């Protein structure tokens, strides 16, 4: 029964990811005085792409064709270990947050390989930029996570959420820093505006788009879906770890319904924040990204320090 529930939660996760992307696009359009596309536009795009025939260069090796499937399945597996509407599910008990980061870097590794594989200038440039950013973002994310896990004394996500729920409303300095650092890292890792612009195909500035320039058809659909999933994963992580109230602790239909409603509300709010920041800030120069990410790292480090200094037991 629990396994069935975990599976259906993962399916729900995967199914809701394009809706979140559509909602963010909708908020951004409203904020920028443009007419918004329908909320379900990402689904239509994905459907259209799957119907089209993928065109693969004759220079491409097997890595190029297999990468979209690997990336997508890594993201689905990552989605299965993040509690969405209920804690204490068997899938989230089996793996912790380090494994989650491992899934992310596994997917990124194959994405970078696929960008290099075809041999175009843009692919190689995008891969090198992506790896540069991720080498800086990963330590920052781990620092933020460590600040969190030192309080909860576990790296398991559902146990950490249980800890926060049990404790009630406590103002922890380390959580403030961890939240800020995770938000900065999430923006960098999902390629949103101060770091990368998801809506542009301008050659000089693109990072994520440069790697997937050669993809078409269902391959492109899978990669797009995977990146929407990644965005949603980060959103759910932030929403459920720091503000877990409303998540279902017992497996009853009523609790699960509330859990779903709450997580949709939290994600909608977070995406409004994201759309606001994307509207207010301009994209940074590429060489300033390391300053941005070292600030995120510093926040994570300060989170750990303030856990030790300020929250120490006597």
């Amino acid at each position, binding site marked *: 029964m629990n396994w069935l529930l975990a599976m259906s939660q993962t399916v729900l996760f995967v199914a809701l990811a394009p809706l979140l992307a559509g909602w963010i696009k909708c908020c951004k359009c409203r904020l920028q005085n443009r007419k918004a596309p329908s909320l379900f536009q990402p689904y239509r795009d994905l459907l259209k792409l799957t119907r089209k025939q993928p065109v693969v260069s004759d220079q491409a090796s097997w890595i190029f064709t297999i990468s979209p499937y690997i990336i997508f399945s890594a993201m689905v597996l990552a989605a299965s270990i993040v509690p969405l509407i209920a804690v204490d599910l068997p899938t989230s008990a089996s793996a912790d947050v380090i494994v989650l980061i491992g899934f992310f870097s596994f997917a990124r590794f194959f994405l970078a390989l696929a960008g290099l594989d075809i041999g175009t200038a843009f692919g190689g440039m995008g891969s090198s930029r992506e790896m540069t950013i991720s080498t800086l973002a990963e330590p920052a994310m781990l620092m933020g996570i460590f600040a969190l896990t030192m309080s909860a004394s576990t790296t398991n996500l559902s146990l950490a959420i249980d800890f926060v729920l049990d404790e009630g409303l*406590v*103002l*922890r300095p380390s959580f403030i820093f961890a939240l800020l650092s995770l938000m900065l890292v999430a923006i960098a890792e999902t390629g949103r505006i101060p770091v990368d612009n998801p809506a542009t195909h301008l050659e000089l500035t693109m990072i994520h788009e440069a790697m997937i320039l050669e993809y078409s058809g269902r391959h492109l659909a899978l990669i797009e879906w995977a990146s929407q999933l990644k965005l949603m994963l980060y959103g759910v992580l932030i929403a459920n770890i720091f503000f877990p109230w409303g998540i279902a602790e017992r497996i009853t239909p009523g609790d699960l319904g509330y859990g779903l409603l709450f997580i949709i509300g939290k994600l909608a709010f977070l995406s409004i924040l994201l759309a606001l920041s994307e509207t207010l800030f301009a994209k940074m120069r590429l060489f300033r990204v390391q300053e941005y990410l070292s600030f995120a790292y510093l926040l994570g*480090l300060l989170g750990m*320090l303030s856990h030790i*200094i300020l929250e120490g037991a*006597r």
Partner: protein
Amino acid sequence: MNIEQLDFYTQAILSLAALVGLTSFLMLGQGRLLRLIFVFAVQGFLLALTTAAAAYSLSNYHLYISAALTLVLKVILIPWMLRRQVLKMNMHRDVEALSNNTAVMLGGASLMLFSYYILHPIVQTSSLVMLNALAVSLSVMLLGMLLMISHRQAVAHVVGFMSIENGLFFAAIVATHGMPMVVELGVAFDVLVAAVLFGIFFLHIRTSIDSLDVDLLNRLSEVDK
């Protein structure tokens, strides 16, 4: 006693203390003078909030007066004076290129660790929970000194000096239940007088070496340029 057993005001004070530490780090990495002054004002504001929260939770009413003094002096008056001087000397467009910024930041983090290590035995002797923030206040002082070392503009040095004073004030709040009013008033006016004097110094430095870049003072003669 762990943080979850404390009352909400003490938790808020500890969180604000962490944010005061964060503003010190922000100042350290700031190359633009106007933004530096703004962050300094934010630090003053957080300090005033901390003082007010401490006044409420200790029900020590004369701390309200020092909170108000902090608000007036360090959030409004001194930042306004510094800002006016920067605008008058037309330095608000200069961006100071900070050499090895990352190293300075990491040095700042290790200073924070160092102050924790130094103060750990002292903090253990007392049961006052707010004393945990003493390490943060010491690191605010040390970070102010680091700011003075790592920046070259005289205005940045003044901001560093003022933030050292912020650290001292913060230490006084968390370690004691507020100093006597006479001392606090004296310190507050000293700071004000210092700010005025620094303005005059700016003027003199500027007329003699035609810049506020303090590194130029290292050259003694005009020959070896």
